[in-house]
């Protein structure tokens, strides 16, 4: 966990209202895992007051001029939804940004093997691309399927990037049918489930809007397929101290209900443990 000011080297609009930003932050990148996030202070004033959490989208190598050294950088992908992200979008390369991270528990691949399915809704691609990069290094994973859902064609993000990461198949669903399947990403998941032998090791990783995650949780729990999903919640501290970001969970072992902190115990949780309100 590190906190300090880092330099922005890229901040560009990649789709209408969606930006990618590269931060020269080797202190954070070195320890970062897929599913973790950084907590960003968007300005020096007190409005907005709190930091904004953004998932680690990619860790990319930057070659330094001197001594052909390489340093890892952090890339984030964000949508402009309110004042904090609007201020971020106005930053220029060369400016500084105060970040804190890496925070949270990532996807924790552990001893994953066999078939892996990544399902992303909208901005949900952000942490899943980092995960896809990690999965590529997992020798026991045979096939990786990627399902991307978006409102419309222009907002389908990272499709090529996932393909480049040697996913077996990248499927796209859009609400308006302007690209790929017309309908929900979860329809595609259901269909995929019907073509796979779920008795063989299969794991699902999901990130996206709450409605989608709820449905993914229902589907995977019903089929007994292990599924880990990344949640979002309003955050205060981001480090587990304020208890502001909790989600209601039921222990898979004991059945005991309690609150867990999205920032520290998550943001990645087992689909089965989440109690949806």
């Amino acid at each position, binding site marked *: 966990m590190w906190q300090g000011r880092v330099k922005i080297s890229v901040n560009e609009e990649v789709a209408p209202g969606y930006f990618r930003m590269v931060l020269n932050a080797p202190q954070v990148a070195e320890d970062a895992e897929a599913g973790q996030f950084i907590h960003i202070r968007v300005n020096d004033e007190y409005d907005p*007051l*709190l930091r904004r959490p953004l998932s680690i989208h990619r860790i990319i190598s930057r070659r330094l001029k001197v001594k052909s050294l390489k340093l890892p950088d952090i890339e984030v992908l964000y949508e402009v939804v309110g004042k904090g992200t609007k201020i971020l979008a106005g930053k220029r390369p060369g400016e500084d940004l105060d970040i804190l991270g890496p925070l949270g528990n990532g996807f924790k691949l552990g001893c994953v093997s066999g078939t892996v399915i990544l399902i992303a809704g909208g901005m949900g691609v952000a942490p899943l691309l980092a995960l896809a990069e990690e999965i590529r290094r997992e020798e026991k994973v045979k096939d990786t399927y990627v399902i991307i859902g978006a409102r419309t064609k222009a907002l389908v993000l990272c499709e090529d990037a996932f393909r480049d990461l040697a996913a077996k198949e990248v499927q796209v669903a859009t609400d308006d049918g302007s690209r790929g399947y017309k309908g929900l990403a979860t329809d595609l998941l259901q269909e995929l489930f019907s073509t796979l032998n779920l008795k063989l090791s299969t794991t699902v990783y999901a990130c996206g809007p709450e409605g989608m995650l709820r449905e993914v949780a229902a589907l995977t729990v019903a089929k007994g397929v292990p599924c880990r999903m990344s949640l979002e*919640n*309003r955050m205060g*501290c981001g*480090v587990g*101290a*304020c208890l502001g970001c909790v989600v*209601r969970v039921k222990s898979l072992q004991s059945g005991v209900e309690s*609150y867990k902190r999205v920032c520290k115990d998550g943001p990645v949780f087992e689909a089965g443990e989440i109690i949806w309100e």
Partner: protein
Amino acid sequence: MKSEPNISVDIAGIKMRCPVMVASGTFGYGEEYADLLDLSRLGALVAKGITLNPRQGNPPPRIVETPAGMLNAIGWENVGLQVFLEEKLPFLKRFNTPLIVNVCGKKEEEYVQIAERLDDREGVAGLELNISCPNVRSGGLSFGREAGATQKLVAGVRRVTKLPLIVKLSPNVTDIVSIGRAAQDAGADGLSLINTLVGIAVDIKTKRPKLTNITGGLSGPAIKPVALRSVWEVAGKVDLPIIGMGGIMTGEDAVEFLLAGATAVAVGTANFVNPHAALDVAEGIREYLEENKIQDVNSLREYGKKW
């Protein structure tokens, strides 16, 4: 200036190397921040409020940002006294930093029992009675909004503990001085002020409050003027050392509180924005003293008395 200015203070017998502590509920039990800053450089650490039994707290959403502030309705989620003593205290004892335990309860009985059990505990430097938490209601106003109830509660706790007893005041009152006086009369050794202001934020999409608990406690820079006014009012009328808090983000903010009459300050919401805030604030105070050629931080609180 020849010598370094003195920044150590004494609050109700608790000796602090610098006048900056972290405010209850904003720093957990220290564990989460231990990676980010050296806890042994804090003036004191005030633990997250504990109750006799564990409490799960309020359903989320529990926090919402407001202009230059935030509302929280955590609702006293905490591990309870027993687990605190077994699992949290040992960690906190490792640092050479006074630990002040923030005590919450629904009934006087609860406060008294907690105070009794903490009285002879190694590693506990003092108690802070949170009589002002707006997020738990037990039939009407909380203790800290009425002088009589305050006096009774503080007296009850005073009877069972020799530890320095700090009472944390609520700003949601007509006359904060009368509450401070009641605490003093009942034997308190110090006062913390302010706790959060009661507020609401509304989600115009759902047409409901943003917090499940409806109301929450407002903290952060937005409330700093109210906090400074409260400290100044109480400092002029009550003869107890004051821990000032409410919106402190920088050393300059802290100096405002010290000038208004506080002996020490606590940093709350700022920890979320800048995890290093408490130490930065302490450093800012030291720099202010040096630049202004002031030898002792304890001389600052005399200024407010002359306004």
